[in-house]
Every structure is written in structure tokens, then in C-alpha cells.
């Protein structure tokens, strides 16, 4: 089982996501490029994903909706340049924050039959990144402090919930 590594550096409007999959690149790319496959994995299981249009070619459009009961979160954008097994590139806009468009590249790197997927998102400002992340699909932000997760887990498991002194 791979580990998803998310980095959102302080002060720079990027989000980077890295994950390795135990499958050859052609297959992993297919899971991204084929909308019938895409809707089977993108997003938590509680969402039903409807792919309205998904045209992975230069100038092709895309739009999908995640539905969770009465809530619906829609996203759309345009593919730019050749969409290959090595790299896909698209604009991305959450319709709940119109005008906040990011540029997203997905690189597929094959190593010994396994595939590393590197997703790099560039927002127009740190504020825009955070605003997008706090709404709709992305409700939280993993900040890129190397040992933060580990530290926080250790601290919250050790420290008592009550605000009172421990001694």
C-alpha cells in the first residue's frame, strides 16, 4: 500500500501530491484518462461522481460533479497541450469559488513496473490556494512541514484533552 505525500509550502501557492502505485504507467494513465475509470476512484466513497465531459486532448474540456446527499461540488477546466502517458496538464476551477483557477500537472513516472504519480498544482496566490482548499472538495490543507504529522500525532496522543496543567 502506497503513502500519499501532500506538500503545501508556506508562502508559495503550490500543492504537491505524490503517490506510487503497483501498476505499469499505461494502466495508471488509463485510470486518469478514461472517465469511466476516473469516476470509480476520484474522491471518497461517500461521493457519487458524475463526469459530464472529460476530453483529455489539447483544448479539450472537462467537468465533473461530486454528490454527497444534498450537497454537490462541481469542478471544471480545460486540458492544455498533448495529454500523454508521461504527463497531463489542465486548468482546474471549483465552481464554488469562481475565478480561482489553478494549473494542474500530473506526471506519470514508471519504475520497475510501478508508477509514481506526481501532481503539481499552481494557484494564483497563497490566499487563493487556501480558499480553494477550505471549500468543497478540499476541506483541509496538509502543510509541508516535514515532521509535522508525526509530531502532532505524538503530541495529541500524549497531551491530555483538558486544558489544565499536567502537574
Amino acid at each position: 500500500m502506497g503513502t500519499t505525500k501532500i506538500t503545501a509550502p508556506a508562502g508559495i501557492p503550490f500543492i504537491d501530491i505524490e503517490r506510487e502505485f503497483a501498476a505499469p504507467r499505461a494502466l495508471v494513465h488509463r485510470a486518469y484518462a478514461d472517465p469511466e475509470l476516473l469516476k470509480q476512484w476520484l474522491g471518497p466513497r461517500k461521493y457519487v461522481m458524475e463526469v459530464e465531459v472529460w476530453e483529455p486532448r489539447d483544448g479539450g474540456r472537462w467537468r465533473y460533479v461530486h454528490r454527497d446527499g444534498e450537497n454537490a461540488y462541481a469542478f471544471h477546466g480545460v486540458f492544455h497541450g498533448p495529454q500523454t502517458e508521461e504527463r497531463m496538464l489542465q486548468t482546474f476551477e471549483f465552481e464554488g469559488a469562481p475565478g480561482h483557477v489553478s494549473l494542474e500537472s500530473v506526471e506519470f513516472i514508471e519504475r520497475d513496473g510501478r508508477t509514481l504519480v506526481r501532481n503539481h498544482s499552481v494557484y494564483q496566490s497563497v490566499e487563493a490556494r487556501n480558499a480553494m482548499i477550505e471549500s468543497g472538495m478540499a476541506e483541509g490543507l496538509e502543510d509541508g512541514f516535514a515532521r509535522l504529522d508525526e509530531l502532532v500525532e505524538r503530541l495529541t496522543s500524549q497531551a491530555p484533552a483538558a486544558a489544565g496543567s499536567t502537574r
Partner: protein
Amino acid sequence: MDQHHQLDAIFGALADPTRRAILARLAEGDWTVGELTAPFGVSQPAISRHLKVLERAGLVSRNRRATARLSHLEAGPLREATEWLARYQAFWDESHERLDALLASLTRQPEG
């Protein structure tokens, strides 16, 4: 302080390795500035400045006990920050686990 600014302050405070080490130390108990300074090989005023940053972020409170001021870890804001982080991570963790399963089934049935 609204949630946005508090999170900025928390992440800013956590960006420094010495401050993370101070928090780890405070998870073991309350300490005076002098006790906190000893293991770090930096000056007491430097540790005091770090404690001020942590205090502004709401991660540390300071109480006077007799003649000593004790620093105390406030885990609440940290827990809120972690939950905020965790939701975004959870979205992708779950997506990628589903993709693992899909890829495994596609590998068994290449044209499936």
C-alpha cells in the same frame, strides 16, 4: 483571532525545528524557561522568544507557580489544526486506495 489567522499562526509557529522540539518537551510536562533552555544549546532569551511565538499561536500558556513561570502545552488548537490537515489528506488517501483497488482489478482483467 479568526480561524484563518490562528491556523497561520500555528503553522508559522510549527515551521521552526526548535519550536517543534519545545512542544515535544512540553508534551512531557510543564517546565520553566531555564529547564526548557538546558537541552537546546541556545540562549535563554532565544528560548523565551520561541515561547512568545508559541504563546501567540495559542499552543503554549504560561502560569506562575510560586516564583517560577511554567510553560504549558495547549493541545486544543493543535488538534484543530491537525483535523483541518487531516480532511484534505483523507480525501486523497481514500481516492488513492480506491485507485489501488481499481488498478488491481484491471491488472487481473486487462480489458475489464
